[in-house]
């Protein structure tokens, strides 16, 4: 028995004594880690829940059912059936008439205005469109669901607090009374809001839709895809397969990695200075937006494509060279097809990122108020995230709902694209 054993005995005791505190610290550490993960998951859920709960009501639009008389005296007094003249007819009168007929007690001017205001400013155009597609309606009576104004829409959906003091709400008690009466009569209908998906932007929330923005996004992404995929793949092929390993290619590689991390707004400045100012391309056009987004997405695609090319084993290349193929034939006939799934996955992910970009497109002017749905890459338009940004500024409660719904659509596209990329990766990627 000696020093060593005594030391050892002491050591064991000390170790055992320290255990309680150490295990307490271990448990605490572990709990903090788990807490962090849970917190992250909570953030995701809160974000999604907030957006969805605000937006899902936008997919339904309130209509008011009224008996409309297509009075030929108003629409087409001369009976010429000239569509251009008919377009100038006062359809508002036809719209107001049945409503006023339902509430004959309304006499005062401002009350009448409030009554008329229950219908959307677009209701007359509903009638015009119906007459245009079916002129035989002139002279007939029909029961039509006319679009309600956004305040009524909000009221019906329960977003307006009836118990708040009248000065705090947008609808006064009289209007609420009318709406209740109409509801009892069964005239208040909630229909699927197809206009939301088809219409362009509008100042009136009940008429505003994402159709223009979606078309704009489509054209922009089309331009981006057509430009960035070939250039990105070509650059990656060159850098990975052909380029000599020297300082210049190192520089290019560092350059690409850095470009991937440059803030998006700087690309917007580039687009503004070069494409719009120097080259004189039209502002707000998906073409310019696509060009800017191409420059932004190129680094992502190049990096993903290089990784895909790198993963093809050298044995394939050697085998091809061994039967006498030239370097370029090896690359294009063998390596690139094998790496294609990875490259496509990277491209889809790049496109998904491009779809969500807002800041650079603001810089090149895709932020104007554009009502028409664009027909091609050169028509002025906006994109979906920019539309969200524009609507977010509007004070009407109905726009909050619509903005959230637009976000839901945007997120749906993104989820679809990313899921597609993941599925493709799982199905086609080989493990060498």
């Amino acid at each position, binding site marked *: 028995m000696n020093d060593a054993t005594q030391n050892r005995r002491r050591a064991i005791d000390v170790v055992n004594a320290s255990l309680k505190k150490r*295990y307490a610290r271990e448990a605490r550490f572990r709990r903090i880690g788990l807490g962090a993960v849970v917190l*992250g998951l909570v953030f995701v859920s809160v974000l999604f829940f907030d957006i969805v709960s605000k937006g899902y009501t936008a997919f339904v639009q309130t209509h008011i059912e009224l008996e409309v008389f297509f009075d030929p005296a108003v629409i087409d007094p001369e009976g010429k059936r000239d569509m251009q003249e008919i377009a100038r007819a006062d359809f508002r009168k036809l719209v107001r008439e049945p409503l006023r007929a339902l509430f004959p007690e309304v006499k005062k001017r401002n009350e009448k205005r409030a009554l008329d205001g229950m219908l959307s400013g677009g209701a007359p155009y509903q009638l015009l469109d119906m007459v245009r597609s079916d002129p035989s309606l002139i002279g007939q009576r029909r029961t039509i669901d006319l679009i309600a104004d956004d305040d009524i829409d909000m009221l019906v959906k329960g977003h307006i607090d009836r118990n708040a003091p009248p000065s705090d709400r947008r609808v006064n008690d009289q209007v609420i009374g009318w709406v209740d009466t109409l509801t009892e009569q069964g005239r208040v209908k909630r229909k699927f809001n197809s206009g939301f998906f088809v219409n362009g932007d509008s100042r009136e929330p009940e008429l505003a839709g994402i159709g223009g923005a979606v078309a704009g996004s489509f054209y922009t992404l089309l331009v981006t895809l057509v430009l960035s995929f070939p250039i990105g793949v070509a*650059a990656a092929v060159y850098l990975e397969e052909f380029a000599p390993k020297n300082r210049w290619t190192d520089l*290019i590689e560092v350059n690409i990695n*850095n470009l991937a991390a440059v803030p998006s707004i700087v690309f917007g400045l580039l687009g503004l200075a070069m494409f719009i100012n120097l080259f*004189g391309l039209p502002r707000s056009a998906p073409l310019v937006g696509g060009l800017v987004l191409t420059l932004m997405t190129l680094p992502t695609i190049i990096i993903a494509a290089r990784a895909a090319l790198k993963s093809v084993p050298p044995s394939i290349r050697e085998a091809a060279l061994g039967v006498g193929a030239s370097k370029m034939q090896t690359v294009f006939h063998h390596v690139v097809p094998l790496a294609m799934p990875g490259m496509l996955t990277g491209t889809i992910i790049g496109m998904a990122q491009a779809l969500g970009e807002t800041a650079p497109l603001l810089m090149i002017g895709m932020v104007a108020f554009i009502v028409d749905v664009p027909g091609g890459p050169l028509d002025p338009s906006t994109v979906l995230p920019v539309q969200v*940004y524009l609507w977010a500024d509007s004070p009407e409660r109905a726009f909050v709902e619509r903005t959230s719904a637009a976000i839901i659509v945007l997120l749906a596209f993104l989820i679809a694209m990313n899921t597609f990329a993941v599925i493709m990766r799982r199905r086609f990627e080989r493990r060498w």
Partner: protein
Amino acid sequence: MQTPILILVLLGLMAFAFHLGKTRSLATVGGRTGIRQLHSLPAYYGFYTALWAGLPALLIAGVWLFFESSVITSMVVAGLPAELRDQPPAQLGLLVNDITNLANGNIVSRAVDDQLRAAADHMNALRGIGKTALTAVALCIALGAGALAWRTIGPRMRARNRVEAIVNALLIISSLIAILTTVGIVLSVLFESFQFFHKIPLTDFLFGLEWSPQIALRADQVGASGAFGAVPLFTGTLLISVIALMVAVPIGLMSAIYLADYASPRLRSYAKPVLEVLAGVPTVVYGFFAALTLAPAIRGAGEAMGLSVSSESALAAGLVMGVMIIPFVSSLSDDVINAVPQSLRDASYALGATRSETIRQVILPAALPGIMGGILLAASRAIGETMIVVMAAGLSANMTINPLDSVTTVTVQIVTLLVGDQEFDSAKTLAAFALGLLLFIVTLGLNIVALHIVRKYREQYE
């Protein structure tokens, strides 16, 4: 001929040239039976002819089209009467816009007089001439080059090599586009910034304490202080970024540690992708959430506690930005933590250390450079972020460290200065470019340092 049609015609010519080249190559060796005498496959001769027919013509057409509008504009301006030509640039620009609109058949902002109409007609005439000339030139070049190439076809001609050389050149050009982008960014931003620094001295900009970018439209306009000191913007950016990092770093790092070392593989396979989702949500969505849900909530909570909270508080923007950055920190930390070799973990466990002791005293110090790199990248992302702050932070250039106040950042000001109707060379718009230059330099610096650290760290363990 309209541009898209011209391009289609050229493409058609290329296809035709391909066919011609291929048949000629076979013809020179007496048909298919002689194919072995050809140096390359007939298809390559076809490609060669097609490329020569198409590429020069497309190239010329591209260059022509890019510069067409500016050239025509200057020609039209040169054709204007002297008094219109000598207007200040702002007025001249508006005039040119009107002429263009009239020529296109759009609405014009001023009364249409003879001079305007003459100028518009001039423009349309020039455009017509331009289009015809372009068509002629392009088709001539296509036919000429194609014919020349066609004539050189013979069995000894190494078509494959030549085609591959052309393809090689195309590949190189594609790679250069990446470099050209950076060069383009730097040049365009620098150019405009230099113009800015002509008007406002650099020291005023970098060290000035007041930011209110008004430019007097008239000499005696009230409210035109025109101060361009960017320091309040820096403090605003820093405040929001610091708040964001204070949220993202602890949560990101601890969740990376938990998922790497404590979590079961099942939990890890579910939780990791969900956290990655935070990185994929568009920033405009975060901005919306911050502006419409979080900021009012903070305001309400603050007022309940008796504090005065701005409705566009830096706290709201910073918190949401922090949430957005969490995946950046956690993903990179996860990578570096997993890269620490198992042998170090074994050594620590064999000495009787608990898991948290191993992580805190062995793994984290070993992984620290990589984690620092990740944090720097996250910081760079926070500084360059635009939409969240545009929607949730304010416009008032406040120099404060109180997170409950409203501040503005560099990116917000860039957007505000440019999304409006300024002519292109007023000091306001140029200021945006100067800010952009600054932003680019700072984020580039952070990125270079961060990537350098991460790469050096990886080499250490591989």
